[in-house]
C-alpha cells in the first residue's frame, strides 16, 4: 500500500519522469559528445598526419636520399611514438626500409595514409619511395569508449543524487503540504466550510511574501468563503425554487383544471369552436356544439371539411367565400375577422342564423399557420331583433299615439262632457235623447280605444300593488254582461279569497275585459258559453318550464269560449300587435297584444289552447304573493252635490266649461280659470276663499302640480284634485308626495268628477272633525 502510494506520489512521478527524460538526454548528449569527440580525434589524427607530412616528410626524404637509414629509423620511431600513430613504414624502391610498430594494422583498424618520398635534385623531383602512416583508430575507439562509460556513469550518478535530493526537497516543500491539502479536501463538505485550510508551515501575513502553496491555500480559503456565500445563496435560491416548484405544481394543477374547464366549456358552450389550417382545407378541431347547430356530426366534418360550407344557404355563400379568400391569401389578417352572417340549412330543413368570428394562429415568427374561431347560433337573437324592431316600431307608434291621445282625450272630454250635459237636459221620452246617447256611446268607444293605445304603448303608467283578483274580475264581468249579447252565457267560477297578486287593478280589469270581449266575438254569430275561472294553482317544475316560467304558486285566470276556435298559424300570431281576424272596424288588433304585455309585466304566463271549431281557452297565470291587498277604490258613488267653493283650473276652455257647468249643476260655487298663473294670483289674494282646487296638470307657464304645491304652501289642508291626461312628469305617487290628495285621469265624466270632488271634501270634513 505504501509502495503504491509512493509510486503514485507526484514526487515519485516527477523523479521518475526526470530520470527518464534525463537518461534519454544523457544518452543523446553522450552520443553527440561521442560523435564530436570522435570527429575531434579524427581531426587531431588528420592534423597530426598533416604535421608529420609537413615536418617529417622532407627530413625522411632527405634521410632516404642520404641513405641515412639510422636517422630514418630514428625519425620513423619518433613518428610512431606520436599518440595517434601506431605503425610507420618507409618503403624505398619496393623494399621496406624502415617499419616501426607491433604489426601493420588491418584496414578497418587504422587510418592509413601513404605519402610519396621525393627529393629535389638537379631541378627534378626524384621519387625515392613512400612513407605509410597508420593512424590508431582502435586507440581512439578505446579512449572514446572509456570516456563514454565514465561520462555516463558520472552523469547517472549526478542525476540519481539530484533526483534523490529533489525528491526529498519536493516532499518537504510541496508533497507533504499537498497531502495535508488532499486530506482536508477529502473531508471538506458543506459542514466544514467554516474551518479554513492551514498548512504545517507558517503562512506569511503579507501576500507578496507567500510562496505558491501559500497562495493556493490563501486562494482556496477565499474560494471557500465565496463558496460558502454561494452555497448560502444557492440555498436561498433552492428554497425559492422549491417554492416556485410548488407554485408550478399548483399552476399545473390549475392548468389541468383549466384545461378540463376548457374541455368542459368546449363541450358545453352553445357556440361552435373551430380550428382550421391556413388554407381552410383541413379542420383541426371542432367542438361538439357543431352537431347541435349544423345538425351534422363532427366526424362527418373532419372527414369532409367542406361539408360545413355546403350546408350554407346558397345565397349566403358568396360573401362568405370572399372573406375566406382574403384570409387564405393573407390579405386580411387582422387580429379578429368577422364573417358576414350566414344561414345554414340543417338536414331536417330548418335553418339557423350563424355569426362567425376568426383569429389567425401564428407561430413564433409571426407566420399564420391556421385560424381559430367561433360560430354562434344567432337565430334566437335574429328573432329577438325582429321583435325588437317591431317593438321599436310600436314604441314609435305608441309615442305618436300617446301624443295624439292627449289631445284626443281633451276633444273627447269636451264631446262627452257636452253630450252628457245635453243628455241631462233632454227628457228620456224625447226622440233626440237617443241621438245624444249614440254620441256618448261612440265617445266612450273612442275613449276605450285611446286607453288601449296608451296601455299598449305603456304611456299609461302601470301602478302595481298587491291586489285581490276576484273583486276586479267580478266587477269586470258585471260591466261586460251589459255589452255582451244574451246569446252568450257567462259562467263564472270565482272564489272569494283566491289570493293576491302584484298588479295594477286597472290593467287586470283590462285583461279580463279584453279576453272576454275576444271570447264573445268568437261566439257572436252562434252564441255559446263564456266560462271564466279564477283559482289558485301550484305549478310544478316541468309545467312551469313548459310555460317558460318558474315553479310556484300562481292565480290562474281561465277564459274559455265555445266559439269557432283557430288554426295553428293564427294561434302563432294572436299576440302580434294589430293582428286581427276581425272585419275592419270591429277590432283594433291590440287587445291580446295588450294582454300579453300586461301579463308579462306582472311576471305571469299565458297558455292558449284552441282548435278550429273546438273553441278557445286562454289561461293566464299571475304569480301569487303573500302580501295583503291594498284597499280598493270604492265603487263610485252616485254623484252628490255640495255648496263648497271650488277653484277650477284648466287651459282647455271646452273642458273647463263642461266641468264648470257640471259642478254648478251639482250646487257648487265654481270659479273657472284657464290660466294657471292667474289662478295662483287669485288664490294668493284670498286663500281662504276656496274649499277645493281642481287643476289640470299640463298647462303653459305653470303646471298643475306646481300650482298645487304653491297653493298648499299657503294652505296646507286645502284638498286638491289633479287631473291628468297624458303626462310623463307627474305620477300619483309624486302627486301624493306633494300633498295632492286626489288624482284622476282624463277624460272624466261629469259624474265621475262630481264623485271625486265630493269624496275629497268629505275626507276633508272628516279630518276636521
Amino acid at each position: 500500500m505504501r509502495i503504491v502510494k509512493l509510486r503514485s506520489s507526484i514526487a515519485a512521478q516527477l523523479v521518475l519522469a526526470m530520470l527518464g527524460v534525463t537518461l534519454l538526454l544523457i544518452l543523446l548528449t553522450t552520443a553527440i559528445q561521442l560523435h564530436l569527440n570522435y570527429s575531434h580525434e579524427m581531426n587531431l589524427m588528420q592534423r597530426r598526419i598533416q604535421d608529420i607530412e609537413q615536418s617529417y616528410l622532407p627530413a625522411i626524404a632527405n634521410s632516404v636520399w642520404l641513405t641515412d637509414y639510422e636517422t630514418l629509423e630514428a625519425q620513423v620511431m619518433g613518428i610512431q611514438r606520436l599518440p595517434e600513430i601506431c605503425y610507420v613504414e618507409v618503403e624505398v624502391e619496393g623494399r621496406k626500409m624502415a617499419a616501426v610498430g607491433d604489426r601493420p594494422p588491418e584496414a578497418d583498424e587504422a587510418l592509413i595514409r601513404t605519402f610519396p618520398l621525393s627529393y629535389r635534385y638537379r631541378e627534378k623531383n626524384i621519387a625515392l619511395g613512400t612513407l605509410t602512416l597508420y593512424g590508431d583508430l582502435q586507440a581512439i575507439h578505446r579512449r572514446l569508449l572509456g570516456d563514454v562509460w565514465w561520462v555516463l556513469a558520472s552523469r547517472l550518478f549526478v542525476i540519481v543524487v539530484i533526483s534523490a535530493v529533489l525528491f526529498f526537497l519536493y516532499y518537504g516543500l510541496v508533497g507533504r503540504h499537498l497531502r495535508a491539502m488532499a486530506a482536508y479536501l477529502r473531508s471538506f463538505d458543506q459542514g466544514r466550510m467554516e474551518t479554513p485550510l492551514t498548512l504545517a508551515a507558517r503562512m506569511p501575513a503579507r501576500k507578496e511574501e507567500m510562496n505558491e502553496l501559500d497562495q493556493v491555500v490563501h486562494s482556496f480559503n477565499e474560494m471557500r468563503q465565496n463558496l460558502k456565500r454561494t452555497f448560502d445563496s444557492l440555498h436561498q435560491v433552492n428554497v425559492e425554487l422549491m417554492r416556485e416548484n410548488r407554485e408550478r405544481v399548483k399552476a399545473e394543477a390549475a392548468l389541468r383544471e383549466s384545461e378540463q374547464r376548457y374541455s368542459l366549456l368546449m363541450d358545453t358552450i352553445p357556440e361552435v369552436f373551430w380550428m382550421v389550417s391556413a388554407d381552410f382545407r383541413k379542420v383541426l378541431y371542432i367542438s361538439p356544439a357543431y352537431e347541435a347547430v349544423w345538425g351534422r356530426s363532427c366526424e362527418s366534418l373532419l372527414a369532409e371539411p367542406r361539408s360545413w360550407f355546403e350546408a350554407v344557404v346558397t345565397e349566403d355563400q358568396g360573401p362568405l367565400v370572399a372573406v375566406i379568400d382574403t384570409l387564405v391569401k393573407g390579405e386580411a389578417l387582422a387580429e379578429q375577422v368577422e364573417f358576414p352572417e350566414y344561414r345554414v340549412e340543417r338536414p331536417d330543413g330548418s335553418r339557423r342564423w350563424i355569426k362567425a368570428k376568426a383569429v389567425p394562429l401564428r407561430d413564433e415568427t409571426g407566420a399564420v399557420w391556421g385560424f381559430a374561431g367561433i360560430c354562434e347560433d344567432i337565430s334566437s337573437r335574429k328573432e329577438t331583433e325582429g321583435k325588437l324592431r317591431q317593438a321599436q316600431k310600436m314604441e314609435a307608434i305608441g309615442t305618436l299615439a300617446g301624443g295624439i291621445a292627449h289631445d284626443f282625450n281633451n276633444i273627447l272630454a269636451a264631446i262627452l262632457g257636452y253630450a252628457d250635459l245635453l243628455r241631462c237636459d233632454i227628457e228620456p221620452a224625447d226622440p233626440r235623447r237617443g241621438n245624444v246617447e249614440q254620441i256618448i256611446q261612440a265617445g266612450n268607444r273612442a275613449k276605450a280605444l285611446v286607453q288601449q293605445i296608451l296601455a299598449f304603448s305603456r304611456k299609461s303608467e302601470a301602478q302595481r300593488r298587491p291586489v285581490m283578483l276576484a273583486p276586479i274580475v267580478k266587477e269586470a264581468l258585471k260591466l261586460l254582461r251589459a255589452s255582451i249579447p244574451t246569446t252568450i252565457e257567462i259562467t263564472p267560477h270565482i272564489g272569494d279569497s283566491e289570493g293576491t297578486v302584484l298588479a295594477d287593478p286597472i290593467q287586470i280589469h283590462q285583461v279580463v275585459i279584453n279576453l272576454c270581449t275576444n271570447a264573445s266575438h268568437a261566439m257572436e254569430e252562434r252564441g255559446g258559453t263564456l266560462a271564466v275561472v279564477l283559482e289558485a294553482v301550484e305549478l310544478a317544475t316541468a309545467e312551469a318550464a313548459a310555460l317558460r316560467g318558474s315553479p310556484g304558486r300562481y292565480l290562474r285566470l281561465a277564459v274559455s269560449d265555445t266559439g269557432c276556435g283557430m288554426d295553428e298559424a293564427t294561434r302563432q300570431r294572436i299576440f302580434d300587435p294589430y293582428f286581427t281576424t276581425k272585419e275592419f272596424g270591429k277590432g283594433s288588433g291590440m287587445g291580446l297584444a295588450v294582454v300579453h304585455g300586461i301579463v308579462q309585466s306582472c311576471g305571469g304566463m299565458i297558455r292558449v289552447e284552441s282548435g278550429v271549431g273546438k273553441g278557445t281557452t286562454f289561461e293566464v297565470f299571475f304569480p301569487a304573493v303573500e302580501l295583503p291587498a291594498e284597499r280598493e277604490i270604492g265603487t263610485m258613488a252616485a254623484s252628490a252635490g255640495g255648496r263648497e267653493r271650488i277653484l277650477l283650473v284648466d287651459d282647455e276652455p271646452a273642458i273647463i266649461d263642461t266641468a264648470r257647468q257640471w259642478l254648478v249643476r251639482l250646487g257648487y260655487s265654481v270659479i273657472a280659470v284657464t290660466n294657471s298663473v292667474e289662478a295662483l294670483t287669485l288664490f294668493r289674494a284670498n286663500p281662504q276663499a276656496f274649499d277645493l282646487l281642481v287643476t289640470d296638470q299640463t298647462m303653459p307657464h305653470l303646471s298643475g302640480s306646481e300650482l298645487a304645491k304653491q297653493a298648499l304652501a299657503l294652505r296646507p289642508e286645502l284638498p286638491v284634485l289633479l287631473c291628468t291626461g297624458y303626462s310623463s312628469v307627474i305620477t300619483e305617487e309624486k302627486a301624493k308626495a306633494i300633498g295632492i290628495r286626489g288624482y284622476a285621469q282624463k277624460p272624466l265624466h261629469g259624474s265621475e268628477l262630481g264623485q271625486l270632488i265630493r269624496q275629497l271634501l268629505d275626507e276633508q270634513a272628516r279630518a276636521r272633525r
Partner: protein
Amino acid sequence: MARLLWCMLWLMLQPLPLCAQSAPPLVLNTYAGPPFSTADQQGYYDQILREAFRRLGVPVVIGQLPAERSLLNANSGIDDGDFVRIAGLEKRYPNLVMVPEKIDDFEFVAFTRRLNLETARWSALAPYHVAIVRGWKILEENLAGVWQLSAVDNQEQLFTLLQRDRVDAVVYSRREGHALLWRLGITDGVTLEPPLAVRPMYLYLNKKHQALAVPLAAILKRMKADGTVAAIGRRTLTLFLPAEAPGAHR
C-alpha cells in the same frame, strides 16, 4: 696500321657521342672530397675524368654525393655514373657497368689519435669503437664485428668524430684521410700500419652508357701512359699531400 684501324673504328663510333653533343652532360658523382673532388670540379679525380670524357667527346658534370646515394643514383639512372669504387659492385647494383681501367688505388687504413697497435688488421680493431663513411662496402663488411661501428654521411663527419674523440679510430683511404687531417688541423692523427686493405678503384657507369666503358678505359690507360694523370696529380695534390710524391701510385 692497327692503330689506324682502331682509330677508324673509334671514329666510326664517334657519331654517337658526336650526336650527343647537344644532349645534356653526363652526371658523375663521387663521395670523395677535396682535394680529390671539389665543388668546382678541379679536384684530382675531377680533372682526370673530365679530361678522359673530353677526349671521348662527352661532356660531363661532376658532383659530390654521399657514398650510398651516389651509388644508388647511378644504379637507378638518376645520374650517369659513380666513381672511385672497388671492383665487383655490379653484382649488388646490376644497373652499373664498371669501366675496366682503375682510376686510383685505395689504401684503407685506420686513423687514430689514441690507439697504438703494432700490426693493424681487421680483427685488431674488434674491441674498439670504429667509425666509417656510410656506403663503403669493403669497410662495412670487414668491420661488422667491432665493438661499436658508427657510419656517417661523409668524410668531414668521420674525421670530426675522430677530432672530438668520439670514436677510437676511423677507417678511410690513406690519401684522403691525410688530406682531411691536414684540413681539419688534427695534428695528432696517425695511421695504423700496414694498410688494412688495398683496392683498385674504378669508374662505374649506368648501363645505358655501357658503350662508353671500354673507350673510357682505353683513354684512361693512355692518360696514365702519357703522363696526363701524373701532371694532374701534381697540380691538385701537392698542397694537401706534401709527403706524397705527385702522381705516385701505391
